[in-house]
């Protein structure tokens, strides 16, 4: 187990964690401000990836397609908010689960109707298809480096938006105490449509950037949605900072665990056990992490509400 290998897997974990953060940031704000469980958040991620694939084919430009996909998904998200989700804020969590589960079914089938059941091909841009030498002996995929750069840039922008602008101040006010913010004259309705659009746009960035690495297919949103929920629960619901820490933690723990645990188990256990146990423990590692965090800090690492 060389240092190079560990470094490479840490970079992979960072890349995955940053994309998780993009998903979790929107989710945690929706959850934190409106107290709304949105299972359909993963569907916006899927829609973003499909739009990306479509626009890349239509325009031939990765950057232009990314911008179009993000804008398109943001518009779809805001339409969904205005038409449906608004009716759900005052309802209990169970109703929200049922309604957004229905949205998942509808979104999956609509995508299947339009694009078919087969995974859609989305290639990495030609300029970034090769590896670059980061260190002597460490050749790393340049596209994954781009993902890390985009993730860091978006995280920084989001931090500036939330921490330094007036809109961001209103968002924070809404997340820490919705009634009080409303009483102080904040138009929560409009604010929330905006937040929802931003969240959808972030989903689209994640979907578009991960598309070439993972498969663009129906159902891609569901598996990653659960991870995003794990992230926001670990981080503390409603907290952007918590989402970032939680996402990096989950991304790195998951990636490192999958990469090294099976080998580690082979060192200490008979091979028959190790081949079963290694992957199993690696898969459940993040859930153990979440259960442990909830056990000691039931409100998550960075509780948004005081």
């Amino acid at each position: 187990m060389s240092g190079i290998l560990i470094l490479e897997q840490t970079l992979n974990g960072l890349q995955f964690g940053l994309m998780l953060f993009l998903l979790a940031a929107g989710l945690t704000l929706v959850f934190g401000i409106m107290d709304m469980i949105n299972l359909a958040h993963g569907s916006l991620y899927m829609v973003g990836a499909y739009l990306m694939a479509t626009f890349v084919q239509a325009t031939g430009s990765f950057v232009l397609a990314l911008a179009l996909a993000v804008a398109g998904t943001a518009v779809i998200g805001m339409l969904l908010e205005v038409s449906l989700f608004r009716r759900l804020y005052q309802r209990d969590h169970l109703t929200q689960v049922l309604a957004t589960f229905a949205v998942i079914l509808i979104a999956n089938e609509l995508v299947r109707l339009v694009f078919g059941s087969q995974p859609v091909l989305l290639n990495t841009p030609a300029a970034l298809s090769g590896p670059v030498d980061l260190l002597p002996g460490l050749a790393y995929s340049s596209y994954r480096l781009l993902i890390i750069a985009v993730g860091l840039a978006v995280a920084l922008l989001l931090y500036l938006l939330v921490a330094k602008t007036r809109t961001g101040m209103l968002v924070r006010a809404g997340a820490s105490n919705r009634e009080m913010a409303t009483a102080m004259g904040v138009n929560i309705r409009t604010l929330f449509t905006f937040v929802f659009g931003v969240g959808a746009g972030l989903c689209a960035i994640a979907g578009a950037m991960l598309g070439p690495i993972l498969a663009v297919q129906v159902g891609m949103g569901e598996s990653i949605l659960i991870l995003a929920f794990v992230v926001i629960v670990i981080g503390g619901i409603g907290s952007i900072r918590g989402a970032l820490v939680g996402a990096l933690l989950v991304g790195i723990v998951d990636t490192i665990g999958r990469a090294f645990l099976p080998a580690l188990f082979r060192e200490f256990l008979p091979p028959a056990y190790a081949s079963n146990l290694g992957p199993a423990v690696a898969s459940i590692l993040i859930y153990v992490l979440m259960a442990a965090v909830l056990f000691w800090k039931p409100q998550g690492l960075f509780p948004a509400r005081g």
Partner: protein
Amino acid sequence: MSAVRKLTLAGAAALVAAPLLLHVLEQDFYVGLASRIMIYAIAATSLNLILGYGGMVSFGHAAFLGAGAYTVGILMAEGVTSAWIAWPAAVGIAALFALVIGAISLRTRGVYFIMITLAFAQMMYYIFVSLKAYGGEDGLNLATRSGVGFGLDLKDDLTFYYLVLAALLATLYGMHRLVHARFGRVIEAIRENETRMEAVGFPTYRYKLVCFVIAGAVCGLAGALLANQANFVSPRLLDWIQSGSLMIMVILGGIGYLYGGVIGAFALLALEEALSAYTIYWQLPVGIVLLAAVLLAPRGLAGIFGRSVPAREAANG
């Protein structure tokens, strides 16, 4: 005789007569489907106990379905085919899992409870995926159905149907007795105001845990039946989508209504079956119907028909 009791008797009579009618109509295929629906009705009813009456929003109930099913599957793979051993084992294992999961999860509340139950179900999902000796991701085929003796052969779909029906009726009767007993009253009171119940002197945590374990055990029985019905178990039984489906059955049917789980299971699975015959895109209309149900019938289908027992909507997260 009250209206609810009349409807109950009519429903039970219809279920007893249904296979005969299907046989006359030469639609015997539907006997198997009806068995499957009734098994899900048992599972949904068990979830309704903690969700509707207890206000515990568990997003990981499929874990107990899977635990029961895999107990039967693994025992059968090891050569134990008797239902008298396998089914109590399935119930016991599911109850044991529920005890451990509940003991930890019930320390949290609200959204965190939803997420931690989900996390445990996901852990079990991945454990079964990695059980290569018992099929791993592909699942495990059962050689035969469990044997019950007394000259009954569960491989006969009709016999199996009536056994499942008996299990469903027993579950409903047990649940009826439970929620009207002192225990049920305490559980509902804890849902309404846990702090007060604690102040009055009830050990609320223990009551909730017992309720959680009962629900897990009953769901384990449903899992054992499901493994027999399909002759197949796979990790998909523990998927979070499965937990979500069970929740949807309960919400659709009517939270905190005795028949909520039954109505929901029948409505959802029959709808799926009917639509999938017409179009491969059946999830689209199912989604639209679900959405309409949420917006137009907030108390579920049972809430449209029955006025009685308007158990308050489950505690808000």
